[in-house]
Each structure stands twice: as C-alpha cells, then as structure tokens.
C-alpha cells in the first residue's frame, strides 16, 4: 500500500479528479495548501505587480494498493500539466503505507483502501 500526495494547481483540481475517476480511483482527500517554489505567478495590488511568496495550491492525498500507483501517477501527470508544462504545475510524492482501516466496518489492509 502506498500513500500518494500530489500538490497541484487549484485550477486543475476538476480535471485531475475526472482523470482519477477514469482510472477507477474513487476515493481521495483534498485540502487547501500554499506552495512555495519558484515564484512566477503574479498578483496585483494598487498598481503594482507582486510575485507572491506563497501561491494557492491543492493538496490531494490518495491511499492506494500497489498496482494502482502507476495508473494514478499517470492520470495526475496528464491532467495536472498545463498545455506545455509550466513552473508551478506541481509534484507527486509517493510514500510507503503500512496499514489502512475503514472506520465503518473495521476492515483492514488492502480491502479497506
């Protein structure tokens, strides 16, 4: 079992969700986050252009059985990339996971994902 954490552009959230559903990955958890990376985005404030230090991002967390990991990565990669790949497009992190428990039933392990 793996835990995938993907940091993506907020505007790509819907596309990524659709892509994951197409890859038969239905369950995920999303939260707002702020990214600090190469600043390229622009923000305006009374006639001045700012490159904000922190930019809004979406953080997607997906627990997966091993054979779903590659499809998930591919789905995210395709859906989250801007037409030609732009700075700020995001990252995917893959971490090991040891157990997963479904609260409703108490099932554990791969079953419960």
């Amino acid at each position, binding site marked *: 079992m793996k835990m995938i954490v993907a940091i993506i552009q907020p505007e790509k959230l*819907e596309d990524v969700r659709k892509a994951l559903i197409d890859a038969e990955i239905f369950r995920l958890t999303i939260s707002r986050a702020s990214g600090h990376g190469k600043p390229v985005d*622009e923000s*305006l404030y009374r006639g001045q252009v700012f490159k904000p230090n922190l930019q*809004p991002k979406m953080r997607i967390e997906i627990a997966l059985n091993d054979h779903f990991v590659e499809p998930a990565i591919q789905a995210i990669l395709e859906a989250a990339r801007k037409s030609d790949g732009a700075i700020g497009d995001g990252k995917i992190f893959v971490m090991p996971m040891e157990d997963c428990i479904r609260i409703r039933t108490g099932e554990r392990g791969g079953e419960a994902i």
Partner: protein
Amino acid sequence: MQRLQPQSLATRSTASRLGWLLALITAAIAIPAPAFAQQPEIDTGTTAWMITSTALVLLMVPGLAMFYGGLVRTRNVIGTMMHCFTAMAIVGVLWAVVGYSMTFGDSIGFVGWNSDFFMLQGIDETVRESGIPEYVFVMFQGKFAIITPALIAGAFAERVRFRGYCAFVLLWTTLVYFPLAHWIWGGGFLTGRAIDFAGGTVIHISAGVAGLVSALYLGARRGYPQTAMHPNNLVMTLMGAGLLWVGWFGFNAGSSEASGLVTAQALTVTQISAAAGALTWIAIEGVHLKKATSLGLVSGILAGLVAITPAAGDVLPYGAIVLGMLGSIFCYGAVLIKAKLGYDDTLDVFGIHGVGGIVGAIGLTFFLRPSPDRPSIGTQLWHQVEGVLVSIGYSAVVTLILIILIEKTLGFRMPPAEENAGMDHVLHGEEGYGLLNPN
C-alpha cells in the same frame, strides 16, 4: 403618467395646503406673488426622504454584490462582486452624461432628449413639482439604471470576460434600459397605461429576460450541472439579502417621489410582501424537502420584494400578502423548472426577477386600491400584459443582438482554461480570501 401620478397624489396635501393658503392670502390682501409662479418651493421633508431613498438604493449595489458574490465559487467571488461595482462606475457616469436626457427628456420617438439634461448642465437650480430639486430625482433614478445591468450579471456569473462585460453594461443600459424606462415612465408610448410603480417591468422583467437570453446564448458553466457548484459564502449572501431588504425601502417607498401617504403605503406593502414571500418559500421547502434553507428564505424575500415592486403604490396590505406568496410560489417553480430544462441561469435572474416581476405586474391588477378613475379590470389587465410583453420582447431581442455582437468582437465568454482558473485570478489578478492561505 403612471409614474407621475403617485407623486402628484402624495404631494397634494402639501401643495394644496400652501396653494390654498396663498390663494386665500392673495385674495384677501391682493398682493401679487410672482416668484411663486416660476418654480415650486422646495419641500425639505420630501427632499430629505428622496435623498435618503437615493442612499438606500445605492446601498443595494453593495448588497447585491454581497448577495451574488456569496453564491458563486470561491474563485469567482471578486469577479462577481466587480460586476456590481463596475455597473456603479460605468452607469454612474453614463447616466449623468446622456442617460437622464435619454430617459426623461422630451420624447423624440424612440427615446427622449433634452439638451438641458446633457451633462445635467441646465438643471442646477431646478425644482420639481413635488418640491425636490431635480438633481435629487436624477440621482434617485440613476440608481435604478445602475442596479438593472448589475442584476443581469447574475445570469452569466462565473464565465464572462471583464472587457465584454463592460461593453455589455454600456450598450445594454443605453439601448435597452434608457428606451424602456422612457416608454413606461418618461413620457413614451406606454406612459400612463401600465402600472409600474417602482420598476417591475422596466427593471426586473427586462433584467430577468436579458439574463435568460444571455445564459442561453453563452451556455452553461463548464461542468454544469454534473458538478455541484457550492456557494462560497452563504453567510455573506445573507448579509447581502439584509441590505437588499433595507435598500428596497428606498427603491419602492422612494418611487412615490413624496414623503406622505403613498410613501407610507409603498413602505408597508413592501415590508409585508417580503415577509410573506420569505415565509412562503420556507414553508414550501419544509413540505418539499423537509428542511428550510437560508438560501430559500432569502430567495423568498427577494421574490416577495420583486413581486410587490410594480404594485407598491397601488395595492392594499392583504394584496401584498397574496402577491408575496404568489411571488415565492412561482419563483420556486421557475427555479425547479430551470433545473429540469438544464440551462444555466447561474443565480436565477430570470427565475427570481423575471418571473417575480411578471407575477407582480400582472397580479397587481386584482388587488388594486379602489379608486374612481381606474379603468375596468379588463382594460387594466390588458395594459399590464402589454407592458410585460413589450418589456420581454424588446429586452430579449436587443440583448441577444448585443451579446452576439460582443461575443464576436471583444469576446464575452471566457475560454475553458480561464474559466477553470477562475475570474479572480485570470481577469483581476486577485484573490478574494487571502485568509485561506497563510499570509
């Protein structure tokens, strides 16, 4: 002359009192009073209320911005509020330059015109019959011209370009609102036929229809209706609804152009209809969905307010209760039907303002305050229907032409990627709620 009736009615007491006194005095002691012939005296009380009304109607602009702004998705909150504020900026100038002249100038056929009104240059000291400086009337009416295009913006919320919107506001106000207001209030061919006390036809129906047409032409938001699009801030929508209710007192009671009986009557039925509309909507929801929602409550408030708008000076309290109820019932139905039909009138401009306006404009016929010089109920009903049909037809046709024109030239609808990213980021380079990110 419908528009002018209430004013003459309401100011009768004041005017006649002074007139009578003067007549008496003049008769008794035979001193000529030439100054009085030239221009009516200012009535400080009426002026006070009309200025206040103007401020109250202005309050509806931020109120509407809050109401609409709270209902869209987070990424479009600034863009949506901007629609209201931009209307205030554009029409604020436009009205002073040509709008008042085109609406209330002498009829030159299609619209009015009066070179004294151009840039408001010839009315610096003019006082109207009702005892208010003409400037006050200009400003009060100007607020109506501002709010009307702002209302429409709800129909195509979350998906239009700012440039296109600015052009739309400019053109629509000039080519739809000014003529229509001229026809019904300013001396044009419908003046004195249809009763439209505070703008049910001119404002709500024309905006509702324009909204419907543009929503249909521009198409639904991406992902609608499969993706649920949650209001980003219902709390703000409730605040906005509160301000709208308060502002509507200026809207309706101010339309009496007086501070007297008609004003009080308009105030009273406005309050009652809003409350009745709210109650009705949550009652329907209670039965239909087993839950009453806050959005339902405020939608009912609006439905009640819209329905009473054309009728405010002419119906009795029980009529206000019925019109408020009917407003909510029909609007609730209209919103449900929209969902069935699947078009995306984002914030239900047609469902609330269009339908509510029609219910009010036609429904008022049956609750009119008895009065000797009313036409028969059939005649009145015909006048009302006529007004409604003209408003629907004219607004629909010209709006469609404008939308097509703008879409083909400047571009109106946002391209998909921009729409996904949201208006706030793409069009304005801003973010509504910085608080969501550590800052």
